[in-house]
Structures are given as structure tokens and as C-alpha cells.
């Protein structure tokens, strides 16, 4: 009663904490079903070939995706990763025909925009272009999941195990190497990109 100041301080701290919690929770827990995804939207016309015709699409660079911190997006990314058979080449992140995704080697960059671009454009030596097939918000979700596989998403939003046989022991149970500074060991010159 006599001590007004500490009370005010505590109230302020609580309010600030609650606000921070609110923002964090809202971002993490929101389920966005219909959205205009940030960045480039694949054009309306269906491409009849796997190859990318014509000029380059506008890039998705400098667009904050907001998907990395969203647990629903990560979960959707996980589902789509299997539905669109990404596992066929990347084998649940372990790599096979395509490069592994759970290590910290990023050939074309680890930023969400880089991964988005890789999926949309395709890459030499087998990665097909998915632009025009997969809606862009789903590509962002897959990109977020790929970043999760690489250990780049905040732990608080990460998915836990799936209801299948375990590919690797408990995805969240054991500490995984979290690269602080993603290496970009090899980046082909722009001219080589198809």
C-alpha cells in the first residue's frame, strides 16, 4: 500500500510481458487459410511444360515471409513436402537424388526468399520448377518447412514428431546443430541459372 512505485513497476513489466506474449502467440498460432502470399504470385496461365519459358519472374527477394514463425505454416509445409513428393528426392530431409536438407550446406542460400526461388524456378541437375503448379503461399510454407529441416526456424513454432516410423530419433527430443551463420559454400554464377 505504501509502496506505490514497485507496484507500478511490476504492473508495467507485466503489461509489457503480456504484450510481447500476445504478439508472439498471435503470430505463432494463427491459422491463415486464404491469403495473398507475399512476394511473387505465379501467373494465372498454366504452363504446359516443366521447363521455365520466357523471361524470369519477379523475384521474391526482400519480402518477409512471416511463415517461419507460424506453426500452422510449418505443419502445412510438412504435409505438402510429402504430398508433393519432395521426399522422393530429398528423403525427409536426409537427401537422396537431391541434396540433403537437414545439414547446414545451402547451395542456393538459406533465406526464405532463396528457398522460395529454388522451388519456383527449379535448379540444374534435377530440381524441377514448381512455379505455376504450387500456389505461392504453399511454396512459402514448404520453404518454411525446409528451413525447419535445416534448423533455422524458432523452436517454439517447430512441429514435433509425426505419426510414422521415426526417420531420425525424435525431431525435437535431441538438440540438433543449429547453424548460427548459414554457410553459402557454393553459389553458381547467375548465368548458369536456366
Amino acid at each position, binding site marked *: 500500500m505504501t509502496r506505490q512505485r514497485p507496484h507500478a513497476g511490476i504492473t508495467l513489466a507485466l503489461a509489457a510481458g503480456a504484450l510481447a506474449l500476445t504478439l508472439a502467440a498471435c503470430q505463432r498460432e494463427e491459422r491463415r487459410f486464404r491469403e495473398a502470399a507475399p512476394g511473387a504470385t505465379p501467373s494465372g496461365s498454366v504452363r504446359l511444360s516443366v521447363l521455365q519459358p520466357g523471361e524470369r519472374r519477379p523475384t521474391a527477394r526482400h519480402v518477409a515471409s512471416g511463415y517461419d514463425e507460424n506453426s500452422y505454416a510449418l505443419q502445412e509445409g510438412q504435409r505438402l513436402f510429402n504430398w508433393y513428393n519432395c521426399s522422393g528426392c530429398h528423403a525427409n530431409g536426409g537427401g537422396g537424388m537431391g541434396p540433403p536438407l537437414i545439414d547446414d550446406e545451402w547451395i542456393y542460400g538459406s533465406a526464405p526468399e532463396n528457398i522460395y526461388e529454388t522451388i519456383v524456378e527449379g535448379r540444374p541437375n534435377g530440381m524441377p520448377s514448381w512455379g505455376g503448379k504450387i500456389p505461392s503461399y504453399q511454396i512459402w510454407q514448404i520453404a518454411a518447412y525446409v528451413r525447419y529441416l535445416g534448423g533455422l526456424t524458432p523452436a517454439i513454432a517447430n512441429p514435433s*514428431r509425426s505419426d510414422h516410423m*521415426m526417420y531420425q*530419433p*525424435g525431431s525435437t*527430443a*535431441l538438440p540438433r546443430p543449429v547453424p548460427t551463420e548459414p554457410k553459402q559454400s557454393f553459389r553458381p554464377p547467375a548465368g548458369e541459372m536456366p
Partner: protein
Amino acid sequence: MTGRPTLRPTVQVLAHTVSNGMPQAAPRPTRAVLDVGDTPDVVFGVRDIMWWGTLGFVVIEGFTLAVCAVSYVYLGQNFPSWPPPGTRPPSVLVPTLHVVLMLASLPLMRWTSKAAHRFDVPKVRTGLTIATLLAAAFIALRTIELLDSLNVKWDTNAYGSAQWLVVGSHATLIAIEFVEVAGMALLFWSSRVQLKHLADAADIVFYWYFMVFGWLPLYVLCFLAPHWV
């Protein structure tokens, strides 16, 4: 909530009537028929109210362990063999050592309890101090059991989860008993110990018995049964 002045009756009634259903404004006057001043204020076992609380939590925790064990058996039915193919059965050396040590602690605890009943503070103090060391040893052994003897991690398969569930649940009992015994030992070394704490010390021994006897079937279930099934 202090003693209130007599409240005015609001319903027009005869105060202090005793007929059924008649409102009464003030508490009825009293007549003393019994004096309880000569009952003891330190008692043990079923006569002690704190013992009943301990019993309550023993029932809760005992039932919890029982349900864990039932879940363990239930999950076991999903496997062709237990442990499942590819998982090593648990090693029995450390767990057996642990059980032997637990059983060996019982005479000491009984001695402590008897000393408490005889209001023998120094002996209770000694008993509790040794019990604290024993409980610490139990914690160490349990840690080895979980990390090494089980030979399985909680996220390997449902067998591993079930093993950790049962052994881990009982581990919390050991941890709680350690905190209680250590706290009580400290109290008995301090100058603030009172007579009633002897009854509490006896209750702790009661909980210790529960901890040990509760573990025996679980030890058989988790560490021996996988070798037999």
C-alpha cells in the same frame, strides 16, 4: 472477519426457539458437556492428522504408478516381443543393486520411526541424516538406471516411452522424498525443532516405506519382465 455484534433479526420470530424450521437470529446459547483439554497434542500414525494427509498422497501417487504400470502392459500388447526387435533389454545390475540398497534402508527407517515415537530427538536426527544420504544415492542410481540401464530412449519407440514413464514416475517419488528428508534433517539440526515434528518425521518414514514397496513390483515389471517375455 472479526467477531460481530449480535445481528438484528429481520424476520419476526421468537429468537432462540428450537422448533423445526424456525428462523433464529443469534447463535444459540451453549452448555459445556465435555472438556477436551486433556487430550494429547502430539500423536502418531492413524491418530495424527498429518498422517492422513500423507496417506492421501500415498494413495494418489500409488494409483498413479498403478495406472502407469497398466499403460505399460497395455502398450506391451502392441508388440510381438518385449522389448521390440532391435531394442536391447535393460541391464539388471544397477537396478538390482538399487533395490537391495532400498531394502537395506528399511531397518534404519524403522529405527528412526521408533526413535520418534520415543521422542528421542538425537536418534531421529541421525536417522534422518543417513536417510538423506541414502536418498541422494537413490537419485544417483535412478539417474544411471534411466540413462544407462534401460538401454532405450523415450523417443525410440513406444516401448522406450513406456519404460521412461514408469521408471521416471517413480523417480519423482524419490526426488520428493529426498527434498522432504533433507528438509526434515535440516530442521532437526536447527534450533527450531518442536515436538510435533517428531510425528512428521514418523510420517516421512511411512512415505519412505511406500516409496520402497511401491518400487518392487515396478522393478520386476521394467527390469526383469523384459527378459522373461
